[in-house]
């Protein structure tokens, strides 16, 4: 019997013929796996656009003076780059793609709790994306505020703010609905015998993330509505001339947007927590400690938003409080790193591409994390705020963390998703090129920031030239690496060798179903009797 059929002969979700044909069989499918792939194609498309914008910015910065664009275009580019990368890629990122695809399978369910709501989330995501991108081509020109839409500039700029803010508002709804769906799915649809402490760590990370999505996202939704009201009705929430407070905007924005960093990073950590035990062929070290640290990061992460505002004019009490809380959140993050490293200790490691991504994730995440402590300390933050040091820090965390985990997860679950195996040689070359490009691109920015180069300027003085040349060449190497990876995966999805059911020897539930899985995942819902990483 072919491995692509279940014992009862049910075809895979890719072969299944439903009510619709062609593209409609995808965009109207409520199957969680197809919805996951809809997100994957959408996100990869936006990623290519966002990455090209980033590359063009680095080409502008390759030497002092105007090279390929002027200041207004550069402002529009970094705004669009930020909006695309944050709202369209890293926030939905792992939960929307791999969460949708693997959460039901990993907890032994046939689908998410609300399949139609799940598809609605993708439609809202696409609607929000279209509205955001419309802002680039209509009205008074591309928004130039940066992705943070800071007041008072965001209600004063003549550029086309309303579609950008409205689109971000719609994208928030997509995120909330996905979070709600995952919370209900995890509470109500776990297989018999799967108690909370028999649930794998990726679903655990999705659970913590889903709570952030549900609780924090409405706050930014309301804030964006306030910006719309400010621009259209001139109310004065944030306008000092009308008695408003611009710092209130920063509070409201970061109350969401800092936890949003954890929406990005927690599922990434969850994916890494799946990859490392599989390729170490060992039970994960400190399973409950990782769960506790996941929940602790999600919880404490709510209360550290003020570290984005240390130079904004907050009270001294608020400054000290946010600084202390920021240092606290480093503890659970460090616990995870210790657990991953301890899992690898004395393990028979199977060196495959997903494992390379996982260990490089730890490397870049550690650099991003430690540089975060430099920014979390009040005294050093004052010097480094709004410099390239900050740009380096958050790219190491957000792109290094989420991006490396995303590509790691992509390679780890690729055989399961597409039923085909990728070319391991090209995958390793892609990873190495990407890694070298990443460190070359963002590493020099730490130096540039410490030397005093501000962010969001299209030009600089001669003294910053050396670091910028290295960084710009790093961008070219990174784009080459991304090109190799994407080309290899796309080619392999079509022409790759047929994958085995369990090519890595994993023991979580997704490896117990055929590759690719059948429409309803399981012939019979499994009964869970032991922990998710029991290699004994």
């Amino acid at each position, binding site marked *: 019997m072919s491995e692509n059929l279940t014992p009862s002969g049910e075809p895979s979700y890719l072969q299944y013929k439903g009510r619709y044909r062609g593209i409609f069989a995808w965009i109207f499918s409520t199957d969680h796996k197809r919805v996951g792939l809809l997100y994957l194609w959408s996100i990869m498309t936006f990623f290519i656009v966002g990455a090209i914008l980033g590359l063009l910015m680095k080409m502008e910065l390759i030497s002092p003076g105007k090279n390929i664009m002027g200041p207004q275009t550069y402002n529009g580019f970094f705004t669009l780059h930020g909006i695309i990368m944050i709202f369209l890629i890293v926030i939905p990122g792992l939960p929307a793609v791999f969460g949708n695809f693997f959460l039901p399978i990993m907890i032994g369910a046939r689908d998410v709790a609300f399949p139609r709501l799940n598809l609605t989330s993708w439609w809202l995501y696409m609607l929000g994306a279209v509205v955001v991108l419309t802002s680039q081509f209509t009205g008074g020109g591309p928004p130039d505020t940066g992705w943070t839409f800071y007041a008072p500039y965001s209600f004063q700029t003549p550029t086309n703010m309303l579609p950008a803010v409205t689109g971000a508002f719609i994208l928030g709804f997509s995120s909330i609905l996905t979070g709600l769906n995952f919370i209900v799915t995890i509470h109500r649809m776990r297989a018999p015998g799967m108690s909370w402490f028999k649930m794998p760590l990726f679903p655990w990370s999705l659970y913590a993330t889903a709570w952030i999505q549900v*609780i924090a996202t409405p706050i930014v939704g309301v804030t964006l509505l306030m910006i719309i009201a400010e621009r259209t009705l001139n109310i004065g929430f944030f306008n000092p001339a009308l008695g408003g407070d611009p*710092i209130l905007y920063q*509070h409201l924005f970061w109350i969401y947007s800092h936890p949003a960093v954890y929406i990005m990073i927690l599922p990434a950590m969850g994916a890494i927590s799946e990859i490392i035990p599989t390729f170490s062929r060992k039970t994960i070290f400190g399973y409950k400690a990782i769960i506790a640290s996941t929940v602790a990061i999600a919880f404490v992460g709510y*209360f550290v938003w003020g570290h984005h505002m240390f130079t904004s004019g907050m*009270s001294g009490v608020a400054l000290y409080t946010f600084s202390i809380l920021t240092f606290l959140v480093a503890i659970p993050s460090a616990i995870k790193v210790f657990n991953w490293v301890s899992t690898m200790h004395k393990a028979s490691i199977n060196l495959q591409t997903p494992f390379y991504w996982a260990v490089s994730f730890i490397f870049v995440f550690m650099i991003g994390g430690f540089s975060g402590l430099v920014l979390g300390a009040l005294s050093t933050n004052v010097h480094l705020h709004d410099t390239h040091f900050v740009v380096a820090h958050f790219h190491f965390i957000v792109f290094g963390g989420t991006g490396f985990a995303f590509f790691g997860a992509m390679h780890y679950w690729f055989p399961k998703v597409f039923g085909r195996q990728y070319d391991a040689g090209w995958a390793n070359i892609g990873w190495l090129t990407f890694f070298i490009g990443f460190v070359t691109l963002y590493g020099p920015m730490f130096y540039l920031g410490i030397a005093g180069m501000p962010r969001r300027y299209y030009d600089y003085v001669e003294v910053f030239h050396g670091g910028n040349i290295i960084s710009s060449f790093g961008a070219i190497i990174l784009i080459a690496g991304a090109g190799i990876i994407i080309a290899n995966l796309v080619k392999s999805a079509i022409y790759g060798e047929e994958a085995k059911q369990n090519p890595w020897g994993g023991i979580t539930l997704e490896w117990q179903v055929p590759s690719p899985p059948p429409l309803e995942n399981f012939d019979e819902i499994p009964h869970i009797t032991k922990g998710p990483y029991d290699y004994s």
Partner: protein
Amino acid sequence: MDNNGKPHIVPYKNHIAVLAVLLILTALSVAVTSIELGPLTVTVALLLATAKALVVLIYFMHLKFDNIIYSIMVAFVMFSIISIIVITFLDYLFR
């Protein structure tokens, strides 16, 4: 485990009582704006809004009759929001 909570049929008078309480609290939140409370203005407004939300949650949305897990979830969310507001006011009150 019973996931659906206690079986219940709520009489109409309960809904009318909820409506009355909400109207009274709304009137109170308007009336209180005429009193100069200084830094406590926002606190009072938030307390009245919280009271209204609790009445809706507990009686109108039947949280009272549901499994305890839902009350715990709502309490957790409320605790988070209250903590966020308190921390925000560490800026405004000490600025």
